[in-house]
């Protein structure tokens, strides 16, 4: 009995001490707070400095991400300018895919960050779930900002008259090629698809692997070429590649393009292209193992980065448009306001306005080789000197007449996710191009 009482006593004492510790922690804060309140109300007439409004922001542009430097610099400059008003609480997410998954899961519980990148179907989820605030009023109040974004970029993110996101970059995507390999194979950038296929054969005959393709992840470098094949195939192809959320993939243009991709994957790419990720394809090109890679200007920095390319590799790289004088030209979805209170919405808008305004676009160009949405932003002399191929990219973009979007920007996320399993199926002969097109149609129909 005595033992039991002793035990009970000890337990109670322990619990009491724990409670007191917790209370003490709390009371320390309380004292601090009440002290502040007392000071404020005890004859000190100086107005208390208003604490900056905290906003949450998740970013995948961290670590070795091509845009990590750009992101860091934008946030640094934003803090220097607006740090007294807005405090951006940054959460770093290690990859694009993890970011998209996290936002979708947060959206399912109705709790998204204050500033959200609307990529890969996130914009749809937020709009349908009534979780975003349109920018119309903010833009009307600030014509300068509106002009800095431009009508086309705003129109690309407008639905039923509401501007749901602000694009921070224009993607002009052609392909890069190894000038030495092209010279040795006796070819120049192809002007038609027939010429493109015959160039591949010539490169192969000269002992080179023509293309750095990959089908893993979102099949990015392969799908850029696929998009170009579809987008340049007559009015129907162009229309398909400029339609948001196409529902029918059973089109002659898609089937023809898939058959051509099958040939490219079978004959003209690296042995590991099936299942490879972006890094494999990028390495294949940067290490001089493949003659071409489809990609945008953000890759330019890699060509002179000694950790990614051999010395002097940047001098060997040329940039070209796709056959039929065409180019992928699309606006990023950009940033959305997910904030819930008027105060955080204002703060989120301030942050987005900085990132997408002229200052933000300039930083993006200088630090991330990202093409601005405003024509007012031009590369600095230092950037031109450091990366002459940037100027070449701009010139190529200006010369092209036919433009279409990326597949990623028009299809639902479940279609983007399906390529990694469908390409191997196509190449293994387990499904024909027609069957793949049918599957894509079925997959897009599953989207809710």
């Amino acid at each position, binding site marked *: 009995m005595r033992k*039991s009482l002793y*035990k009970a006593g000890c*337990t109670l004492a322990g619990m009491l001490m724990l409670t007191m510790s917790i209370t003490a922690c709390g009371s320390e804060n309380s004292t601090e707070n009440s002290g502040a309140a007392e000071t404020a109300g005890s004859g000190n007439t100086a107005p208390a400095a208003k604490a900056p409004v905290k906003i949450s922001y998740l970013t995948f542009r961290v670590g070795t991400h091509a845009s990590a430097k750009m992101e860091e610099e934008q946030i640094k400059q934003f803090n220097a300018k607006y740090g007294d008003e807005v405090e951006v609480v940054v959460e770093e997410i290690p990859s694009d895919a993890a970011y*998209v*998954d996290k936002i*979708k*899961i947060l*959206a*399912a519980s*109705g709790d998204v960050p204050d500033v959200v990148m609307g990529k890969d*179907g996130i914009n749809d*989820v*937020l709009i*349908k*779930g*009534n*979780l975003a605030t349109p920018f119309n009023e903010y833009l009307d109040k600030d014509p300068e900002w509106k002009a800095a974004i431009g009508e086309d970029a705003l129109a690309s993110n407008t639905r039923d008259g509401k501007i749901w996101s602000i694009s921070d970059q224009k993607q002009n995507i052609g392909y890069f090629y190894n000038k030495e390999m092209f010279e040795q194979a006796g070819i120049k950038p192809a002007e038609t698809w027939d010429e493109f296929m015959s160039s591949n054969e010539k490169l192969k005959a000269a002992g080179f692997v023509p293309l750095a393709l990959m*089908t*893993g992840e979102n099949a990015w470098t392969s799908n850029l070429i696929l998009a170009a094949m579809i987008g340049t195939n007559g009015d129907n192809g162009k229309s398909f590649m400029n339609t948001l959320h196409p529902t029918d993939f059973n089109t002659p243009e898609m089937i023809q393009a898939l058959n051509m991709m099958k040939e490219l994957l079978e004959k003209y790419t*690296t*042995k*590991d292209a*099936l*299942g490879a990720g972006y890094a494999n394809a990028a390495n294949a090109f940067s290490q001089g193992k493949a003659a071409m890679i489809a990609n945008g200007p953000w890759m330019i920095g890699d060509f002179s980065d000694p950790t990614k390319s051999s010395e002097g590799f940047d001098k060997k790289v040329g940039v070209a448009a796709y056959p039929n004088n065409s180019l992928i030209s699309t606006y990023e979805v950009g940033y959305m306001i997910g904030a819930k209170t008027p105060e955080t919405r204002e703060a989120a808008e301030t942050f987005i306005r900085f990132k997408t305004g002229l200052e933000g676009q300039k930083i993006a160009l200088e630090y991330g080789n990202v093409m601005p949405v405003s024509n007012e932003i031009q590369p600095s002399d230092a950037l031109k000197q450091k990366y002459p191929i940037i100027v070449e990219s701009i010139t190529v973009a200006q010369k092209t007449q036919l433009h279409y979007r990326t597949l990623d920007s028009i299809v639902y*996320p*479940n279609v983007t*996710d399906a390529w*990694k*399993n*469908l390409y*191997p*199926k196509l190449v*293994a002969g*387990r*499904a024909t191009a027609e069957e793949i097109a049918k599957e894509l149609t079925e997959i897009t129909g*599953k*989207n*809710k």
Partner: protein
Amino acid sequence: MVRKNRGYITLFLLPTVALFILVYAVSLVILFGTSFTEWSAGRSPKFIGLTNYIQLFTDDADFRQSALNTGIWVVLQSTIHVAIGTIFAIILSMKEFYWKFARTVYMFPNIISGAAVGMLFLCMLNPDFGAVNSIARLFGNADFSQNWFMDYATAFFSVTMTWLPYAAVVTILILAEIAAIPESLYESARIDGASTLKINLYIVIPMLRNIIGTCVILSGTSMLQKMDIILMTTGGGPGNETMNLPIYIYKTALMDNNFGYSNSVGVFLIGFGLIFVLLCRNLFRIGSSQH
């Protein structure tokens, strides 16, 4: 004694029970409830009765393939994987030459994260620069190039090999159980003239019934959660060749934005797991005396 301390037992169990209810029980109720709804991110669930389950069992080839793959992996893991772990434990328990070194080396794959193991295998089996293909090319076939993870003939096998042979957890559990077998039993057997093989077959292994049963459950159920390595190496492909239920749940929820349907697959997975655990408990008579 138990009756005397009932108050304390209840007091100390309460936080765990409360956490279990908050974290697991509530989630399970929500999972079960929303499996009867049409529910996508940002929208409210809408009750649709058994529609998800009807579609699951009648009109979903991807689900069937995922369930089949999951079932095969559960069987392989609870047989071959446990057998490897058990045999290794018995060999190590003999404490022969360099056994500590062997035990340490054997542990390595189990202390590396799944994603890292996936990356390791991706490099090792890369058709272009991977060690496996390079060795094959060294031995005569200069053109040898096998895309292990993306070829229908080898994908399932290659993914399976990223985890099947690495049974260090099973080995540790069984080693601990072997250490608990009284030395007197071995001595008696030796006095009666039993060989090492006979001692292991007729004394050690029967004595391990409980722990082997536990290992079968642990290994089998680990296959009901397997996701990281598959996503890293094949993403479920080529086609649906290496798709399993966890990846299918992930795809339907986050790619198709169909949380209701995904939750019905989740309910199936939980049911599958429960049946498996009950079967194993009965098969190995876990909990009953082994003497």
